[in-house]
């Protein structure tokens, strides 16, 4: 089947002129760099390790005020937040669980199939119920940016901070920016040690964005908040459900570290 000759090469004067004007369409090199930075790939991709996490912490703090960037590159913030809270949790927690129970999987299945509900209950009461307010239809793998984050990536992210902040007014990304802002409240509450306020913020986010793009990140923060509150049972239940659904998530190892959960055995070759 022969293809028609393109207007670009064989059209009339006006057609050609119009189409040729699009030949100048090209992004700036800075735009690509900003995207790489937002993905946590600004410089190089480092693997997950506690030492990398520790090294990244100052950069993460520096990026904490950046708005969109820290959530798009959620591995930078989320992973560090989780690991950063590990000591707190371990100081109040029971010995690590080493099993992923079928009950937890069932819990996750119920949570996954739930539809958005009305106003969330108060947080003071039953932690398990609180965790079930998370109604993401499927807990998906978060962005792959680097599990417990890379220092170089974080620094690159911080370097591009002003541009990243400017993303929020874009019509196409406004919903994402709003969701990020909603998670900001939870993150800030966690940073100040206020787990109840963090959970309220997460409930609000779940109501506003039941199918939001940052469901996994919200789940990670909820696990952390529950753990910080000392509600290890609920935190573990939610973590196990998350790990069952997304065993390869970049957050997985950090969550296991946080709750002292055993890692799965590698698949047989």
């Amino acid at each position, binding site marked *: 089947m022969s293809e028609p000759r393109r207007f670009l090469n064989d059209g009339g004067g006006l057609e050609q002129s119009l189409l040729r004007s699009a030949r100048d369409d090209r992004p700036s090199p800075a735009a690509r760099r900003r*995207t790489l930075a937002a993905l946590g790939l600004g410089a190089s991709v480092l693997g997950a390790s506690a030492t990398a996490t520790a090294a990244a912490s100052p950069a993460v703090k520096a990026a904490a005020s950046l708005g969109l960037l820290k959530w*798009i590159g959620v*591995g930078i913030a989320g992973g560090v937040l989780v690991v950063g809270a590990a000591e707190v949790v371990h100081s109040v927690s029971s010995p690590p669980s080493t099993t992923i129970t079928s009950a937890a999987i069932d819990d996750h299945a119920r949570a996954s199939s739930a539809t958005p509900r009305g106003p969330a209950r108060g947080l003071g009461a039953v932690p398990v119920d609180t965790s079930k307010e998370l109604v993401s239809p499927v807990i998906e793998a978060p962005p792959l940016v680097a599990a417990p984050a890379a220092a170089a990536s974080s620094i690159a992210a911080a370097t591009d901070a002003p541009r990243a902040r400017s993303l929020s007014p874009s019509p*196409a990304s406004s919903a994402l920016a709003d969701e990020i802002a909603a998670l900001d409240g939870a993150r800030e509450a966690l940073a100040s040690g206020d787990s109840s306020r963090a959970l309220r913020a997460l409930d609000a986010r779940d109501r506003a964005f039941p199918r939001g793009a940052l469901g996994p990140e919200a789940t990670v923060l909820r696990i952390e908040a529950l753990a910080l509150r000392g509600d290890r049972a609920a935190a573990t239940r939610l973590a196990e459900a998350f790990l069952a659904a997304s065993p390869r998530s970049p957050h997985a190892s950090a969550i296991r570290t946080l709750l002292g959960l055993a890692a799965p055995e590698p698949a047989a070759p």
Partner: protein
Amino acid sequence: MGDPGLGLIDAAPSRARDLAGPASAGSIPIVRGAADARAEGARLRGLVDDQYDFIWRSLRRLGVPEGDADDCAQQVFLVASRKLGDIVVGCERPFLFSTALRVASDARRSRSRRREVFEDVDEPRDSAPDPEQLADQKRARALLDEVLDSLPMELRAVFVLYELEELPSAEIAEVLALPIGTVASRLRRAREEFQRIIARMKARDAFDGGRR
């Protein structure tokens, strides 16, 4: 949900769930996790390196204003990063383009809502500029946007890939996950519509010139 009429590709089936039972503690899985993260990061980096320009150009030509193209491109790759495990190796470009189509469609709807409030502009401008005037690339580019805005998205996608990206029909079929016959018919309709709009502009311009 994807609109099959647009030739959009829904997210690939979810990755197999690893519901393996209890495991003994140890460092090997953590090491494996780090290796996975590195591999995925490298793949994502490769995607950006290979496809960023194409996606940015496509977003512009699918109707995203220049001022929003950077943000929308970033949004596309954010989605890709979240779905990376589901993207079949070798099918990255179709996934990214289908995501770009969604993002551009959302942006277009958002812009239309703003237009309804502030303006009453749905048709391309009435008069066609002289070829000399089109030396002004910005004006020509803005006019092209207006003409392309008049095409339905499913036609626009095929038109842009063929006329501007200069992809062969077979590759367009691959990118859009459409039968090649569908691509051919959409291309034919898109080209006819494009010419009709241009002809109308020329006619109006001649009419206005005659009255002057």
